């Protein structure tokens, strides 16, 4: 665990070594503004709440978060630096988790930069700031789940574009698993418990509660265990694929 900060620092620094970080933050802020004010009807709703802001995060993240996850492992494999990384005295866990944490910290930073919205809503009315805090926490957890999926896809593909497409596709499945689109496919034959299990995997269902300010321990556990599962998968895939 001692080398984790070194990995984290290097990864985080590499986001800012290229324009990627600035472009990402800019696009994220612009899009979340567009979603909140135009599509979300922030003013029309006439409520001092950030629900219109949080509601679109699962869709916003679907395309933005894989863009920060796609380079995590694909780039290492492409440049061959993975051979250097994996022969340094660091554990597999430190490498996988350190990289993930860097990407997650970066996503958190982008999220924090939306603070003017919090100021605005406090200026206009009297919102439930506890609910807003919960919303932010939920949104960050959601980003973590997308990132963990993206990290695994990045380990699978040597090509960053393929890693991006794979991550978007898998993440999409996790969004729509609560929709009739998916559930209908199971409805005819599957037992009810399986149907419930599939529906309960959905990001949307889980996130909806959190974005409204309701923090259920089960939802928290859901995101944490999802992240843990995908990071474990990442470690396995890295081991299998590193030498290709």
């Amino acid at each position, binding site marked *: 665990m*001692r*080398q984790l*900060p*070194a*990995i984290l*620092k*290097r990864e985080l*620094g*590499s986001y800012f*070594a*290229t324009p990627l970080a600035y472009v990402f933050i800019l696009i994220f802020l612009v899009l979340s503004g567009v979603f909140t004010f135009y599509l979300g009807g922030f003013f029309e709703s006439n409520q001092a709440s950030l629900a219109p802001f949080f509601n679109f995060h699962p869709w916003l993240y679907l395309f933005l978060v894989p863009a920060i996850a796609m380079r995590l492992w694909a780039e290492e494999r492409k*440049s*061959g*630096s993975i*051979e*250097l990384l*994996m*022969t*340094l*005295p*660091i*554990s597999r866990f430190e490498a996988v988790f350190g990289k993930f944490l860097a990407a997650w910290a970066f996503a958190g930073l982008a999220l924090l930069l939306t603070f003017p919205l919090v100021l605005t809503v406090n200026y206009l009315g009297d919102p439930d700031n506890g609910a807003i805090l919960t919303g932010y926490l939920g949104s960050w957890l959601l980003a973590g789940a997308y990132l963990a999926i993206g990290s695994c896809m990045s380990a699978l593909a040597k090509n960053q574009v393929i890693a991006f497409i794979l991550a978007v596709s898998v993440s999409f499945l996790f969004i729509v698993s609560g929709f009739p689109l998916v559930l209908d496919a199971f409805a005819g034959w599957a037992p009810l418990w399986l149907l419930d299990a599939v529906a309960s995997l959905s990001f949307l269902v889980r996130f909806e509660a959190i974005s409204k300010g309701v923090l259920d321990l089960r939802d928290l556990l859901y995101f944490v265990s999802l992240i843990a599962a995908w990071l474990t998968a990442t470690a396995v895939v890295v081991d299998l694929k*590193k*030498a290709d």
Partner: protein
Amino acid sequence: MIEINNLTRRFAQRTVVDDLSFRVQPGEVLGFLGPNGAGKSTTMKMLTGFLAPTFGSARILGFDIQRQTLQAQRQIGYLPEGAPCYGDMPVAGFLAFIAEVRGFRGAEKRRRVDAAVARLELEKVLGQSIETLSKGFKRRVGLAQAILHEPPVLILDEPTDGLDPNQKHQVRQLIGELARDRIVVISTHILEEVSAVCSRALIIASGRLVADGTPLELESRSRYHQAVTLVGDALDPAALAALPGVAGIEANPVEGSLTVLARPGEVIFPQVNALIHQRGWTVRELDVERGRLDEVFRALTRGEAA
């Protein structure tokens, strides 16, 4: 000591490293020789814990690379083939990262980085990002990260590949300096390098060990070992061929010289010299060979007996 026992690696059905066993002692500079695709890099990847062997084991100073991976990796400085680095990082930042991962902090970290920078003469490029560096500098950055923690074991995969003659000389000198009471394993397909820096050479072909000895021993397996080459007028090949211990004569029309080959284990120079005096030949050049490593290498790696 590095102990390698029955190391084997298969990719799909192809055996790339086939039952390799050897030991390396401190102070030795082991040259790992073989044609491209012979399994040199794969062996090094297994020695450093990057690849798991299909079969067999490697122990680095007593640590099993499979079971005690991190302890073993702490003993090793490794330059992977092509010296891959993080291209977007500046040299100073990259070396600081390596120092941190190696567990150095504060003043000790700075001291280690400064020492490696001074040794590889990287002062002028410290602020540049690695991807903007020339091939020679990139290789030196790769070497700097490998020696930063002053490891007892250095494993360098083609350390001089792509360098100009001056840089090659520098790197060889560095390896020579580092070799004292360390274990150095280098892979190369440049034969002059073996005579220049290695105290021992292993030749592998198709993943199998085909020769193991000092460069001198390997040279003596050449059919040119103890051969005498003459340049002169009116030489008599038949008389030379009839001398005791002579295996044959080769004429080299381009240089206008004759090479007299010795039978294995025989020294023929005295006989040749005596014949020259007896016949009163004018000889402008006379050369006794130690043997030709490239010839031994070709013979062994093509599967023929040397």
